């Protein structure tokens, strides 16, 4: 897609980023001590902290990833909204106040408060680092996606810009700065997402909306051509290669790919190879996403549009069984010569299919059911185990304030997650989906309402990434400087040395995140965050929950469960189908196992490990 920002949009964007940097500089003066750097001195007001929680939590995964997934897969993307929000129930009811009572700066402190074990310090610090880096990857990836259309820069440049700005923020200020940046960003994200949804409802639904036409009346999105194999062959095409329902034709050396639907009709696709896009060396992918028929309306009426809709009628119209929506899916295939092609192909679904789970997360076979339960389990238990969320409990003065700020967060985040459904479906029906990278669906939806809204939304999304990355890097640098160097290594650092060590650690973690953000380009960011949740839930949650509720828990049990949780979750992810089809560039069928989501195995395994090791070591201690 060729979408370059206007000077106005670039100016708004730059202004916002400069404001963020100024805030960091302003609050940096408050971060003279370790307490100020890591926990904002424990003096943030609970209401501010609650919105900051929302700012921390509503990362690129929520705004870019969920909206993008709903735009391309329908209701399946909304499963992430449901799961992410449900996770706050675990945080509020089980973890919030006890953690606040136990800890000081980091998740490790809380776990180690009872045992003062060097093993726990090491295992928890490693866990914090691993989870933070897993969570950083999608944020950096999202930043690259944002910068491409806004500034016309390559994806990798966007990743480096975010990395550099965040390293600067974290190295100068720490938690006070990131808290106020998150407050500002969280508040603006809620306000402008509400405005965007208002515009979507005001526009209503139409099969031929004005917003999809250019100044000369031309279509701005790709309306795929429908044909047959016989017609193509009669036109001089040769069938060159077939991969399941994808057919490769050639004519005079020119390649074209078609997808065959179950009725036998062929549909035009878009495709990329190593050096061609849609057959051209400097070719472009066209935006997609449209409603083809509106249930209960004639063709002419559907073209004229529904006019303004309320929230219920918008969803009900899309749910209507006679509504038809064109989704675009992506698949990687290899031709006879072993050349790799990424095919983007249309698939028409009914309103019934669009508005229920089952496009990505099918539940027909045993493994599919296991994957679905596994995903929902990880999302539910992951939130309360995220280190950058846990450290925010230390920025308020009391356990009661921790509770109240969590409730403010639930209200703000829950409201936002309902909005994601409308933003994602709005993008799906307004021709604003980039088939190669659905992460930009919500900002591009804003672009269909004008450049100013696009610039504001993009700037907020960029700040979203900045804020979340900053929070994660604070957590990771805390793990290195405070847990590993000061407490595990017993280096007995002064306050000033600890802050310096944290800043150096922030720099190193930032560089790692930049590299991984570039490697994972094009993968939906919410899907990647789902993995981070699974790792967090497997590594940290069993330790937290059992420490709070099982008196026979031992330090060795905690260490073992953290290590087993990390290894099991990462092991299942790295040998699973999504990694093979994605970053490895191989076939999903070649993966070692069909399980895409690790939680259903790694979380119980981590709990079991803790119980068994605790019982064994307790016996030994008693003997």
């Amino acid at each position: 897609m060729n979408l370059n920002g206007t000077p106005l949009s670039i100016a708004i964007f730059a202004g916002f980023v400069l404001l963020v940097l100024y805030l960091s500089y302003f609050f940096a003066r408050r971060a003279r001590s370790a307490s100020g750097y890591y926990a904002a001195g424990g003096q943030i007001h609970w209401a501010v902290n609650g919105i900051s929680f929302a700012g921390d939590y509503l990362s690129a995964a929520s705004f870019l990833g969920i909206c993008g997934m709903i735009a391309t897969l329908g209701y399946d993307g909304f499963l992430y909204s449901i799961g992410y929000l449900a996770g706050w129930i675990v945080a509020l009811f089980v973890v919030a106040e006890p953690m606040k009572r136990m800890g000081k700066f980091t998740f490790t402190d809380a776990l180690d408060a009872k045992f003062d074990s060097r093993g726990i310090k090491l295992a928890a610090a490693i866990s914090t680092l691993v989870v933070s880096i897993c969570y950083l990857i999608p944020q950096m990836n999202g930043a690259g996606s944002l910068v491409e259309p806004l500034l016309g820069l390559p994806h990798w440049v966007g990743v480096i810009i975010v990395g550099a700005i965040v390293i600067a923020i974290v190295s100068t200020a720490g938690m006070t700065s990131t808290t106020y940046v998150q407050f500002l960003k969280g508040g603006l994200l809620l306000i402008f997402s509400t405005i965007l949804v208002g515009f979507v409802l005001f526009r209503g639904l139409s099969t031929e909306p004005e917003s999809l036409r250019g100044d000369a009346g031309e279509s701005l999105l790709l309306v795929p051509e429908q044909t047959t194999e016989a017609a193509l062959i009669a036109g001089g095409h040769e069938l060159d290669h077939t991969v399941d329902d994808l057919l490769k034709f050639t004519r005079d050396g020119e390649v074209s790919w078609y997808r065959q639907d179950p009725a036998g009709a062929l549909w035009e696709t878009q495709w990329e190879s190593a050096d061609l896009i849609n057959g051209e060396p400097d070719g472009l992918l066209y935006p997609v996403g449209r409603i083809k028929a509106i249930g209960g309306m004639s063709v002419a009426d559907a073209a004229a549009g529904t006019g303004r809709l309320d929230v219920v009628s918008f969803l009900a119209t899309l749910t209507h069984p006679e509504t038809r929506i064109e989704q675009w899916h992506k698949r990687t295939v290899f031709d006879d010569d072993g050349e790799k092609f990424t095919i983007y192909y249309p698939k028409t679904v009914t309103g019934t299919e669009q508005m229920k789970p089952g496009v990505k997360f099918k539940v027909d076979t045993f493994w599919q059911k296991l994957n679905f339960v596994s995903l929902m389990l990880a999302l539910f238990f992951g939130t309360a185990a995220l280190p950058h969320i846990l450290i925010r409990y230390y920025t308020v003065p009391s356990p009661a304030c921790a509770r109240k700020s969590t409730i403010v967060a639930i209200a703000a985040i829950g409201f936002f997650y309902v909005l994601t459904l409308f933003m994602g479906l709005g993008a799906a029906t307004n021709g604003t989906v980039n088939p190669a990278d659905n992460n930009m669906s919500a900002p591009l939806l804003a672009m269909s309402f004008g450049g100013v809204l696009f610039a504001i939304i993009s700037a907020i999304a960029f700040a979203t990434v900045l804020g979340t990355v900053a929070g994660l890097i604070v957590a990771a640098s805390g793990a290195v400087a405070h847990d590993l160097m000061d407490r595990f290594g017993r280096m007995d650092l002064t306050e000033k040395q600890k802050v310096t060590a944290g800043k150096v650690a922030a720099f190193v973690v930032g560089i790692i995140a930049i590299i991984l953000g570039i490697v994972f380009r094009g993968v939906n960011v919410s899907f990647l965050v789902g993995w981070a949740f699974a790792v967090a839930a497997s590594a940290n949650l069993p330790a937290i929950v059992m420490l709070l509720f099982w008196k026979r828990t031992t330090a060795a049990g905690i260490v073992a469960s953290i290590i087993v949780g990390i290894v099991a979750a990462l092991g299942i992810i790295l040998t699973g189908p999504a990694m093979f089809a994605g970053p490895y560039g191989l076939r999903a069928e070649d993966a070692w196992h069909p399980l895409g989501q690790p939680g259903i195995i790694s979380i119980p395994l981590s709990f079991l490990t803790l119980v068994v090791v605790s019982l064994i070591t307790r016996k030994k201690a008693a003997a």
Partner: protein
Amino acid sequence: MHHGPAQDSGPDPAGRYKTRLGVVMFIIYCVVYAGFVFTNVLTEGRAMQVIVVAGLNLAVVYGVGLIVFALVLALIYNALCTRKEAELAGTDDGEERA
């Protein structure tokens, strides 16, 4: 370096009450959440497409309902905790009574 809480908030007489209440509410939400997950799994998605109200299907109503239910439970929890904290404020034996 001392490793106690960042801010010493003192003893919490309502601590045990709040922990128990939290666990009960967590279990209630767990059951409702599991209902969503297993309704989808056990009916292979068919139940989710049933229209239940105003043209909206079970997937949308249950999904949005889970988000709203979380907030409702959170508000009830806060109200009960705040009331208990006020009731026990200043009592030395609050932990035992709670």
